[in-house]
C-alpha cells in the first residue's frame, strides 16, 4: 500500500508539470469553430457570450479565445442553447452560473460583494466633484490676497512665460 502510494506522488508531479506545459502551449492558437446559425442575430449573440464567459480552466481567457477542451464544450453548449432553445443571454448566463459559479462571468453580478466594484468608481467620481467644488469655491471666494506690489510682481512673472 505505502509503496503504491509513494510512486504516484512523484509521478503526479511530473505529469502535472507536463500537463500544465500542454495547457500553456495550446492556449495560443486561434479558436475557430464552424458553427451555423439561423440568423445573424444568433451569430452575434454567440460571439458576444463567448467574450463574456470565462474559461474555467485557463489563464484569464474567455471561452471564445481558448482552445482548452472545456472552452470548446462550453461554446458548443452556448451554440446549442442559442440555436435549439432560442435561449436569451440571461438564460445562458444562469445556466453557466449554476454549474461553474461566479467565476465564469467576466461581468460580475451586482450583489453585496461586488457593490464596491460597481459603485466604487461612481462614488469616487462624486467625491472628486465634491473636492472640485470646494477647491473652486476656496480659490474664488477669497478676494485676491495680494497687495498691489505683489500683484505686479506676479503679473510680470506670468507674462514672462
Amino acid at each position, binding site marked *: 500500500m505505502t509503496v503504491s502510494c509513494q510512486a*504516484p506522488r512523484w509521478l503526479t508531479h511530473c505529469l502535472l508539470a507536463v500537463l500544465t506545459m500542454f495547457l500553456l502551449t495550446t492556449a495560443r492558437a486561434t479558436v475557430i469553430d464552424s458553427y451555423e446559425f439561423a440568423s445573424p442575430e444568433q451569430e452575434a449573440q454567440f460571439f458576444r457570450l463567448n467574450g463574456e464567459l470565462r474559461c474555467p480552466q485557463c489563464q484569464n481567457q474567455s471561452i471564445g479565445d481558448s482552445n482548452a477542451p472545456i472552452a470548446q464544450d462550453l461554446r458548443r453548449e452556448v451554440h446549442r442553447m442559442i440555436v435549439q432553445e432560442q435561449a436569451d443571454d440571461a438564460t445562458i448566463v444562469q445556466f453557466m452560473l449554476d454549474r461553474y*459559479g461566479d467565476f465564469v462571468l467576466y461581468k460580475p453580478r451586482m450583489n453585496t460583494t461586488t457593490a464596491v466594484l460597481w459603485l466604487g468608481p461612481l462614488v469616487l467620481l462624486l467625491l472628486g466633484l465634491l473636492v472640485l467644488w470646494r477647491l473652486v469655491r476656496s480659490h474664488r471666494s477669497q478676494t485676491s490676497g495680494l497687495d498691489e506690489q505683489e500683484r505686479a510682481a506676479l503679473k510680470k512673472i506670468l507674462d514672462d512665460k
Partner: protein
Amino acid sequence: MKRWKLFLPLAFFLILCVLLYKGLFLENKTELPSALLNNPLPTFQLTTLGNPEQTVTREDVTGEVFLLNVWGSWCPTCRAEHPYLLGLQEQGVRIIGLNYKDDRTEAQQWLRHGGDPYQFNIFDPQGKLGLDLGVYGSPETFLVDKAGVIRYKHVGVVDNRVWQETLKPRYDALQKEAAP
C-alpha cells in the same frame, strides 16, 4: 487642508500591500469552488461503462455516502491517482466513477490493466453529466452524502495527503449522519 489627509495615500498603499502580500501566498488560485456545493447531485440518465444496455440514474447511485471520481483514460493525471484510489477501495471506501468524455473500449481496457477501484462507472461520452456537475478538468472528485447532496469537491489528484487531510474527515463525518 488638514495634514492628516496627506497620509491617506500612504494608508491606501499599505492596505494594498497587505492585499498583495496575501495574494502572493494564496493557494489554489486556479481551483474553483464548486457551484453545486450543498446542492443535490444533478439528475441524469446514462449507461454504465461495463454494459451499454444498462442505464443508470441518480437514484441508482445515491443512498450511501460515496466519492464520485471524474476520470478519463486520456487524462494522465487520472492515471496518476489511480493506484491510490485502488488503495481506498481496499479500505472499503465507496467510489463511483464518472468516465468523462472517453472511449468505451479504451476505458474498459485501462481498467482491466490498471485495476478497477470503482463500484461501477457512469459512462458519459459527451460530458453531459460532467457539464451539469461543473467539471472543468479531470480528475475531480465529489463527495456525496446519503441524501445525494454534493458536500465537497476536490480538483486534482487524490493522494494520501489530500485523503487524510481533507476528504477522509468529511467522508467519516458524513458516514455518521443519519440517512434521510
